[in-house]
């Protein structure tokens, strides 16, 4: 049975009024929501950045497949094509021996200087630089490539790689567990706070029932109230996070250009959407769950 429009309007009004009527309690709830959303919001942003940072490191992992000295240009083209076609391979690049040596010496920084002397006897062959479609497939791809007869030897820092992936995986797991834990904590604490405010209004709920209100009639204003508390509670943390992140991004990209943060947009909007969604859902859910307990009169 549909609700009359005036009743709907009454519920809206009542939900809004209730926030004022329970001034202190509303304030306590809203500030709890604000704090928790801020914590989980900044934590999410941090973890997303850490994750992209890790991915960037992982994506720098590449395989060097040194070509046999006796391969000619055609053969090199063919094998390159063949490798490029494999589904597990993202990209193949040709690197001639001179360039390979340059890169090697560069990568050693000042330590490389001592090697300048051996430029004449370049120990490198020409090589193919291969990137796997997923960094974790690197080992497989390297094994496959090594089987090709045009390839003399393959190089990808096996031991370092396993360590790297174990570490990054653990970082991801710890981060994920923390995010989930924080999410759970947030949901629990917000609904807990709402429950406390509603417990202290149990008498009012029971009077409503005794005066002939249906459960739906009692619950609707609490629904609106939960919604509004969710929205109001989300405003401050979203505002701080959006401006804070944009500012931090600009600050760090000049101060520490080697740390690559995620672009602020659309990231901050996504996180904001997440926060307000979470906030509203928990606000409504928390209040509805708690009211429900006291409807039995």
């Amino acid at each position, binding site marked *: 049975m549909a609700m*009359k429009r*005036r*009743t709907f309007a*009454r519920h809206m009004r009542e939900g809004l009024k209730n926030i004022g*009527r*329970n001034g202190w309690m509303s304030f306590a709830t809203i500030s709890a929501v604000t704090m928790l959303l801020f914590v989980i919001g900044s934590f999410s942003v941090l973890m997303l950045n850490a994750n992209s940072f890790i991915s960037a490191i992982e994506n720098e992992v590449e395989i060097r497949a040194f070509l046999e000295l006796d391969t000619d240009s055609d053969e090199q083209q063919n094998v390159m094509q063949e490798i490029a076609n494999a589904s597990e391979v993202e990209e193949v690049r040709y690197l001639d021996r001179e360039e390979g040596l340059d890169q090697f010496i560069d990568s050693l920084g000042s330590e490389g200087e001592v090697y300048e002397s051996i430029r004449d006897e370049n120990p490198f062959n020409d090589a193919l630089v291969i990137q796997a479609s997923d960094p974790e497939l690197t080992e497989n791809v390297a094994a496959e490539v090594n089987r090709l007869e045009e390839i003399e030897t393959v190089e990808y820092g096996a031991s370092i790689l396993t360590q790297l992936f174990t570490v990054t995986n653990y970082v991801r797991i710890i981060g994920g567990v923390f995010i989930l834990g924080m999410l759970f904590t947030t949901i629990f604490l917000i609904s807990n706070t709402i429950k406390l405010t509603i417990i202290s209004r149990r008498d*009012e709920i029971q*009077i*409503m*029932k*005794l*005066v*002939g*209100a*249906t*459960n739906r*009639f009692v619950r609707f204003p609490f629904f609106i109230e939960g919604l509004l508390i969710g929205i109001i509670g989300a405003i401050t943390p979203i505002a701080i996070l959006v401006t804070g992140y944009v500012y931090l991004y600009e600050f760090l990209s000049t101060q520490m250009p080697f740390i690559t943060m995620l672009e602020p947009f659309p990231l901050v909007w996504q996180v904001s959407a997440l926060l307000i969604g979470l906030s509203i859902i928990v606000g409504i859910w928390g209040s509805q769950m708690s009211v429900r307990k006291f409807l039995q*009169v």
Partner: protein
Amino acid sequence: MRILSLSLIIWIFSMDVRFLIDMKRVRKSYPNRVQALNNINVHIGKEEFVYVVGPSGAGKTTFIKLIIRELKPSEGSIHVNGTNLGDLTEKEIPYLRRKIGVVFQDFKLFPKMSVYENIAFALEVIEAPANRIKERVMEVLDIVHLKDKARFYPSELSGGEMQRIAIARAIVNHPAILIADEPTGNLDPETAWSIMGILEEINNRGTTVVMATHNSHIVNNLRKRVIAIDDGRVVRDEWRGAYGYEA
């Protein structure tokens, strides 16, 4: 055969809608084992005016709570307005309660709502139109002489004022039954009599009135049916009775 037809007659009799409130063999014990009511058989017809009297702790309020289904009886059956309360689903309870106006002994006003809002609530529940709510609330506030306190909150009222607001809320939506639990306990005799005038008028317009009271002066001077309860039992049920609960 005779037993069958007899129970049939009783059954038909019990279905009779002449009885707006109909309790049969009702027993009520609270979870703490207090036996508040025992073997109560009470039939109250349409448009009756009934006093329920009895000493402190006799079971008057329990009797009232059973009628509005705030409590379920431990035994026995209760019919109100033709409905068996035992068959009532959770969803149907509010519709029963809307037909009954109740003045609670402890008033049960909403502490965070103004006097106006407190009374309006009973009309909002039945989805009355806004303009009618306003008109009717001011009307009943006038009846209880508290029009100037419309914007006050219950905590700003005197005991008697709260009681009159509770009365106003109970009558605001023209209930079929008016139940008042000690509605004059906090009122001076003059105001109490004016409230009695209101109840009588409502009763004359067709509302059944059940009033638990300790006010012997009122019971003895405005003679009505008196149901006397003592220690959970009906000890007397007398038309135009006097105050008293000796059997």
